[in-house]
């Protein structure tokens, strides 16, 4: 079966970004995927603005007027430490929503999508807003740049160094945590290095630390200057040398390419294609942009078997709905609750290996919740769901998320309090409705379905017609759209 341009374009918009915006919809039938990719590629060219949400008082606490470190952690009083924790936690929520906002609204779709990939690849958890927004900036700035630069910058970031304990990695008392994960998860993959390589490289990373305000520092006295043998080479290596040797291994290109392929193309890895891509990625000196262009301009990317087979992550699902149907949320923070209920909270990956993805997103609770989200947004249905506590996030304090999210102000209604929660959304339908204007009534359902669903199977018109409001053309389009989004098929892209 031939794949239409519309399908190809929607496929590209979902995979290289967070789905079609309603501005994209008008042209997806006519244009070619080549021109669309070119446009997406160009739009993602600029370095994005730093997302700075950290409380000013917090920054002042850590840095003085000249931007130098003003405090050591030990100098903070108990009250200041508490303030740091609370403000960091609140800051992480703001950072989450600010970045999610970029995924929904930014024209730099390719960059933000790539950043979400790297956010899961270089997964860290640190309850320090300054470290986390710094790492996010490193990732977003380098998302389409050079993988080697990205690797080095992430490895030297406060977030990573704290998360994988390299601050505690000292000459004579090595901490191997970072050395192991950098090879196992970030570059080579299991089976491509030995335990001895872990030990030796851990010695090379000794002395890599960060100051309390988040600046990388090389502590010369803690660094082990002796000879190390690593992946067959011997020398007085430091951390930079080790990363360089890792990047010299073609296996690093292969490992990254495979992960990229499984994320952006198909979870079923195609060995021949991956090998071709990896070879070029390596030859292009780890140019990420070139790798992604290889993928998105190839014929095989648009093959039928690659379309509509990927389970959207919770963040992709939320962003996707909001791109298609622009909406005003009375309480933006309700999106944090959705992330928690669906199992993907930005900046809180399950572990250093990131979100496993694919079928792991789906169980009985998350699937039923996914199916209900469009209804919750459209009709403001009340739902009673409580996410699990996250002790790392809450640190023994009362879960304020509950308090926040339980009081999502239901417009015009009395707050139902603990009885249930609502997402009060006002959807702006104007643009969306407009693009169906030329479609005759009898083709309307098929036309909407083609815009909403990427899968080969759809929902039978016989079933749907019992659940759409045919009183007016407008209500028909609205309800059909919402019902089509409330299906297993819509979970895929």
């Amino acid at each position: 079966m031939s794949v239409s341009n519309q399908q190809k374009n929607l496929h590209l918009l979902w995979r290289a970004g967070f789905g079609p915006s309603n501005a994209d919809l008008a042209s997806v039938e006519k244009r070619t995927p080549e021109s669309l990719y070119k446009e997406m590629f160009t739009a993602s060219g600029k370095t994005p603005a730093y997302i700075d949400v950290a409380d000013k008082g917090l920054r002042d606490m850590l840095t003085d007027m000249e931007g130098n470190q003003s405090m050591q952690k030990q100098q903070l009083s108990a009250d200041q430490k508490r303030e740091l924790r609370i403000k960091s936690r609140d800051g992480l929520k703001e950072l989450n929503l600010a970045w999610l906002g970029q995924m929904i609204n930014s024209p730099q779709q390719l960059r933000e999508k790539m950043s979400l990939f790297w956010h899961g690849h270089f997964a860290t958890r640190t309850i320090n807003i300054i470290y986390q927004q710094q790492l996010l900036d490193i990732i977003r700035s380098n998302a389409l740049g050079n993988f080697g630069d990205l690797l080095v910058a992430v490895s030297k970031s406060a977030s990573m160094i704290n998360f994988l304990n390299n601050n505690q990695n000292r000459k004579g008392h090595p901490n191997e945590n970072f050395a192991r994960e950098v090879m196992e998860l970030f570059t080579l993959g299991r089976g491509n290095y030995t335990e001895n390589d872990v030990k030796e490289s851990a010695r090379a990373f000794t002395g890599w630390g960060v100051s309390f305000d988040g600046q990388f520092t090389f502590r010369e006295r803690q660094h082990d200057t002796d000879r190390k043998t690593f992946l067959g080479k011997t020398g007085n290596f430091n951390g930079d040398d080790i990363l360089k040797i890792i990047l010299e291994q073609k296996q690093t290109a292969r490992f990254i390419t495979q992960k990229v392929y499984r994320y952006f193309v198909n979870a079923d890895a195609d060995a021949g294609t991956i090998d071709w891509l990896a070879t070029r990625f390596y030859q292009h000196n780890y140019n990420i942009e070139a790798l992604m262009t290889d993928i998105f301009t190839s014929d095989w990317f648009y093959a039928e078997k690659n379309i509509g087979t990927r389970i959207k992550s919770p963040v992709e699902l939320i962003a996707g709905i909001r791109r298609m149907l622009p909406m005003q949320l009375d309480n933006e923070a309700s999106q944090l609750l959705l992330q928690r209920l669906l199992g993907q909270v930005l900046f809180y990956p399950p572990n250093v290996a990131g979100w496993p993805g694919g079928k792991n997103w789906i169980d009985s609770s998350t699937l039923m919740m996914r199916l209900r989200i469009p209804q919750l947004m459209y009709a403001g249905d009340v739902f009673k769901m409580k996410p699990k506590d996250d002790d790392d996030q809450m640190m023994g304090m009362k879960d304020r998320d509950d308090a926040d999210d339980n009081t999502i102000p239901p417009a015009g209604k009395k707050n139902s309090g603990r009885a249930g929660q609502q997402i009060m959304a006002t959807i702006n339908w104007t643009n969306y409705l407009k693009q169906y204007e030329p479609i005759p009534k009898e083709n309307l359902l098929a036309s909407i379905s083609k815009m909403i669903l990427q899968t080969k199977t759809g929902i039978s018109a016989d079933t749907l017609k019992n659940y759409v409001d045919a009183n007016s053309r407008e209500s028909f389009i609205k309800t059909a759209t919402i019902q089509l989004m409330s299906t297993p098929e819509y979970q895929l892209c």
Partner: protein
Amino acid sequence: MTNQVFRRKRNQTSINQQSEIVFMLIKRKQFIQLGSLATASLFVPRYMKAFEAPRMVPPGNKVLVVLQLSGGNDGLNTVIPVRNDIYYSSRPKLGIRKEDALLLTEEVGLNPALTGFKDLYEDGSLGILNSVGYPNPDRSHFRSMDIWQTASNSNEYLNNGWLGRYLDAQCSGCDKPVQALEIDDILSLSLKGEKMNGIAMRDPKRLYNTSHEKYFKDVLAQHTNEPREQTVDYLYKTMADTLSSADYIFAQSKLHPTTAQYPATGLGQSLKTIASLIFSDIDTKVYYVSLGSFDTHVGQEGQQKRLFTEMNDAIKAFVADLKTNNRFSDTLLMTFSEFGRRVTQNASAGTDHGTANNMFFVSGGLQQKGLLNAMPNLADLQDGDLKHSIDFKDVYATVLHKWLKSDDEKILGKKSSYLNFV
């Protein structure tokens, strides 16, 4: 895709007719106590097979209830070494005095809030296992919880849990994943398998109501398998399992709802739901429920007391109910927490993250009772934390092998040494 967007459903039987058949089967089953419904199953759509041949629970059917104490419960103020000087000198403010503790022996007392546990101890229905942990302990909540829930080593990352893998082993080929239920809105990693997932629900009626939307049932009914769409089929399978299990669990929960009084707390109501299901014909082997947060960095005494009171009163009611209904010797309740806490109190009348911890086993069918091993050695610490003497994976293996009669080696991926409490 273009010409296949709207498929006509082949089977013209309406969903209502199908549900009627299904309900007839359930009713019939209650009279004839199961048997092969193979002939009847011809009329049941594939996704409704969960209803097919629901086996009566045989007497002696063992049930496991896992109670997760989230946040890192302070084990030393749970089972208290009342004659240990190091304990009192490390905790001048937080240490629980001997005269306040509920004494089990001259050396050991329970937290004053755990009165029901003291009764269970006297009754021979309580086992206490000290110093349970794992090598190279991790002091991060989420990481250590992952390790406990997946039964991994501390340097290994698994995407599925030990009870999920139990489900994989136990339930391969069965359409109904109700063998492991979590009383919660979100499914824990513990109950996620490689192939099968347990089901999470706060209460059967609510699960029934939320999944009972006619639209979802109709969407399910119109779907036909599509060989090129394996992921779509997987989602439909999960949806079908959920919808049919929701109906089934709800029907079961109404068979013999418990009439006993339970406290009006979260845990009290969860254990009441569990009791009603244990008394029904449902083939659930594992129930999972959490209580928290035990992350008592600040003001530990009040917070732990509040949570312990909830736990104590709920379990007291649960045990009494099980005894009345003759199911106590077939039910094992086990508690765990992702780690214990520092031996030394901190400056905020609390304790920080630690390592090894104790576990409780509550059952009328224990083979070994009371204190199952020695109290932790406070004179032999590692970085201020208790050393573990029992790997928690051995506890899992014991429960899987001896209680649930399953292949622990396959589920845990290694041979373990069994303990003797069951």
